[in-house]
């Protein structure tokens, strides 16, 4: 009887060892599918979307806030550290335990325990840096250099959108502004001029040349072709040159910052600081009537504007499908998916804000990894 029990015990131990070995090897086999690669596949797009989405929300919030005469603030996401851990443990405990009661036979004092454990942990660490460095704020308040605007156009951004957003005036012809609570539409000459330039670029008759002189300062020239095939465009370009006070055969035109040109064969572009670019978009934000009536938000009449660069709608409920939406002062402000002009404006703002971010980078947190 005792021998039979011992056989039984040995068999049990054998089974336990076998099962453990199977489990451990099955664990090793699974190593081919490690956690790491899966998390990249699962996380990269969501992180990308989250950063893009939150940037859009932040930019929209700043435009809405400027309508309420609040100070614009930016916060950057410079680093994301996503750490995961998956621990799986299999253990067995085998043995004979001293029984509390001496009458208990040996085989009934057998202790055999499997222990299976799985632990999963997820530790995202996201660092945010408020862009309050003096360099960033000063850049926000300083007019964009005309050369930066022209470089944008040179790298393929649409002439009319880029100039409408970033210029205050072209040779004194004024773009739309919204200061002191009054919205002033653009001069028709200004709109016409940038329309002609956009058409000239479309047909390849307009180019930008960046010139570096020996003191390593840069200047930009606008080049206009002389054999324009389209007669309408040729006539318009001639009229544009006349309007801007240029010689009719001028091909390379120097661009300078200012209200009025100081030399012949030069045009003066007065650019805006990014703060004013954002502020001059704020009239196109719909605000609740009571906020205007109470004087919390600036009243603007933009009814004369046929082609608004941005259209922000406002309501109590968040719409299901929108480009981006923020909740501010208990109202939802959003941009409709269907308003392509707004989306384009956001693309330009992304680049323009990057132009302001020239200050020294703040120290990022260092990731330390403990060695085993």
């Amino acid at each position, binding site marked *: 009887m005792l021998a039979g029990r011992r056989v039984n015990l040995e068999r049990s131990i054998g089974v336990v060892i076998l099962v453990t070995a199977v489990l451990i090897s099955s664990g090793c086999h699974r190593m081919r599918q490690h956690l790491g690669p899966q998390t990249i596949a699962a*996380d990269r797009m969501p992180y990308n979307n989250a950063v893009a989405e939150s940037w859009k929300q932040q930019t929209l919030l700043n435009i809405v806030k400027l309508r309420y005469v609040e100070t614009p603030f930016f916060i950057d996401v410079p680093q994301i550290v996503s750490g995961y*851990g998956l621990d799986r443990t299999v253990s067995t405990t085998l043995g004979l335990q001293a029984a509390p009661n001496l009458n208990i036979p040996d085989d009934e004092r057998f202790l055999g325990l499997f222990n299976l454990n799985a632990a999963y942990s997820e530790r995202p660490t996201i660092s945010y840096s408020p862009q309050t460095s003096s360099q960033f704020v000063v850049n926000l308040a300083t007019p964009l250099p005309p050369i930066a605007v022209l470089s944008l156009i040179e790298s393929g951004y649409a002439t009319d959108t880029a100039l409408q957003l970033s210029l205050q005036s072209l040779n004194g012809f004024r773009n739309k502004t919204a200061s002191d609570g009054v919205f002033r539409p653009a001069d028709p000459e200004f709109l016409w001029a940038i329309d002609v330039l956009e058409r000239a670029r479309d047909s390849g008759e307009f180019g930008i040349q960046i010139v570096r002189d020996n003191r390593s300062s840069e200047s930009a020239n606008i080049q206009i072709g002389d054999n324009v095939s389209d007669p309408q465009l040729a006539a318009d370009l001639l009229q544009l040159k006349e309007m801007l006070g240029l010689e009719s055969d001028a091909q390379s035109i120097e661009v300078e910052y200012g*209200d009025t040109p100081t030399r012949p064969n030069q045009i003066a572009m007065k650019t805006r600081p990014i*703060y004013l670019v954002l502020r001059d978009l704020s009239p196109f934000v719909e605000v609740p009537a009571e906020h205007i009536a109470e004087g919390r938000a600036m009243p603007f009449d933009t009814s004369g504007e046929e082609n608004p660069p941005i259209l922000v709608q406002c309501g109590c409920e968040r719409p299901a499908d929108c480009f981006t939406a923020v909740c501010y002062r208990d109202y939802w402000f959003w941009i409709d998916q269907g308003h392509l002009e707004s989306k384009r404006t956001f693309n330009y703002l992304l680049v323009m804000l990057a132009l302001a971010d020239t200050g020294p980078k*703040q120290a990022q947190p260092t990731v*330390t990894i403990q060695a085993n």
Partner: protein
Amino acid sequence: MTVLFKTPVDSVCIPILGWVSMVALLLIQCGCHHIGPKTIVDDRLPYNEAVAESWKEQTLLNIVKQRYGDTVAFAEVSQVISGYSRDRSGGVEIGTVPGVVPGLTPGDRFRTLFNLRTSFSDRPTITYTPQTGSQFLRRLARPLRPEVVLFLIEAGYPADVILELTVESINGVRNRSSSLRQARLADPEFQRLLQVFRRAQLARGLSTRVKINPEKVETTVLLIRSPDENIDSDLVSDLAESKKLLNLDEELSEFRVVQGSVQLEKNQLAIQTRPLLGILSGLAQFVDVPDHHIADGSAQPLEVSCTESPLRVLCSDAPPADCYAAVPYRGCWYWVDDRDVVSKRTFIYLFFLLAQADSEANRSLPLVTIPVN
């Protein structure tokens, strides 16, 4: 024996199945539902609002403190690190344990234990940089360069607001005093000048340029357009009036900008600017203080009061729910009304002006280390 073992085999099968399904569930969950991306969408805007809100409060507090002769202090939020962790673990223990009394069958001595645990922690780390460096304080106390003021106007910021905030006098024409002890109203000519300059700015009659002479010395000049150019009559009279107010040569259109209060030549524009501390104390005149603080001498009394003010800070026992910014100080709440557009606008310009004092040079940020797992 077969009968004896029947029960435990069944009991073994069920927990193993349970364990497998549990681990599968855990793995499925960990695969598709990560918290990281969602925290960015949830947190970025609230952090932005918190930084903006605290900046407004800090600036307001510094203005109020000036009224009480207290020391100003700035601290900047330099970095926010948001760390989350979510842990989930599960386990099962199965096996035979010794019997407590003799004669227990293996089935009776069989034991199954499940163990499930989940925990979540939210560990934000925020670093602040107090701006107490000598460089920063020197810049606070040093008058702004006149070029800075003129270029702000050139960039399109309203000339009347900028000059009112930053200038003590131009060619001897005095703005209201920024000193609390000797408060004084602006000269009527200065008030007039602000209006004329604003109109001229809108009509593009003023511009600022930097000229480099052959010795490579840069001088800033203010160009006031001469009437012979093709400009409308309103602007002509505005520009002529501004030249007269400033005692400038009416024949000239280009004026050299110098720092100081005394005009030495007729083609000079002597601008006495305020330091940033002066701008703050100049604004402190528009803080309402309770009478008993004046009576006990803790707040500076004022002999004059401006009618048109760039800022209005109200004082009460409790702040209204929807104010622009509110801070408690010495038992009272000081706040700016949300409907006061003029005051709100002043805060935006203060934001830009204070950036002029902030120096990057001597800043050393703490290096934050994030241990991974």
